[in-house]
């Protein structure tokens, strides 16, 4: 994968011909490590309770919430039969506690409290899976903001 094929640069519309190509190339290590981080949270070897398809659906859901619909579509293609959960309005009785938690840490971060964690634990989510879920949503929060920022820099926001 070349630098301009990384998810962040491709979804922000940057190409090797862009005015910002030199500036972004000077931080190539950061964009390449960001891509490795995407691999680690979307497609880890050790998934815990959350398979690659569910992770892809949750990533798409967070991206939609943030208004990054092209990024959401990129993830939704890997969501398999979990794809319906990419819709921010979708609910699944068996995964309600996971969806509620994902939506809250993505969108009402400041309001997250100890009860949100103990609630997940009470629903049978292991501590390792709580951390995995946080890393997935937290990475997406980073990725959508870098993409939005780069698009603003290029003057193509909105």
């Amino acid at each position: 994968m070349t630098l301009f094929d990384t998810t962040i640069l491709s979804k922000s519309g940057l190409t090797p011909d862009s005015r910002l190509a030199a500036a972004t190339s000077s931080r190539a290590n950061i964009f390449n490590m960001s891509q490795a981080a995407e691999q680690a949270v979307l497609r880890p070897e050790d998934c815990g309770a959350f398979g690659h398809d569910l992770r892809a659906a949750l990533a798409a859901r967070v991206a939609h919430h943030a208004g990054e619909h092209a990024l959401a579509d990129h993830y939704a293609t890997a969501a398999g039969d979990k794809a319906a959960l990419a819709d921010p309005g979708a609910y699944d009785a068996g995964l309600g506690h996971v969806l509620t938690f994902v939506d809250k840490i993505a969108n009402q971060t400041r309001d997250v409290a100890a009860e949100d964690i103990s609630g997940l634990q009470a629903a049978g989510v292991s501590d390792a899976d709580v951390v995995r879920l946080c890393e997935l949503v937290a990475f997406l929060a980073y990725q959508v903001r870098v993409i939005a920022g780069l698009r603003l820099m290029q003057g193509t926001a909105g």
Partner: protein
Amino acid sequence: MSRVIHKFTRNVPGWQPRVTPVKLDEATPEQLAALQVTPSNTKVSDYVLTLAHDVESLAVRSPLFNAIMYDPGGMSRAERELGALAASMVNRCIYCAAVHADRHAQLEKDTTVTDELFAKGENADLTARDRAIFDFARKSAEAPPAAGPADMDALRNAGLSDEEILDLILSAALFGWANRLMHVLGDPVRKGNGA
């Protein structure tokens, strides 16, 4: 619970996990490698031991974090700290805000900016350059991200280069990530007896 801190401060608090961290003597070889534990370095914080539950993420996040905050060139380290602080204030990550306000004050050898920000929030009296940096990072941290063309114009009008703006985008966004770990997975607590 009375030890939990709810107000912004530059005094770096303790951090009490809400989940059980990985126990160092039970860590896998992969976890030990990501924790960078060696015979001469066996001190690992509860925060990093908590993140070791997802060792694949931890292993890639640590070098990425260091590159965004410390690699040479582009934006000054103090201004990257200001971006980190703005995001941490939006997300009310008391611990992150303390660490990065303290670093900003140390790098600048001046507490004026962080005193102003903790006293007055977004109404703080800042230089035009700090104002543009703080506002861009603060709006970027909102959910959904709310920075717009006027905020980008303000950065350029304040004299920031493309390289500096890119570093600001990265450092503010990085704290969208860090805040969602530190503020979600634990509580900032008063240090001292019983800590």
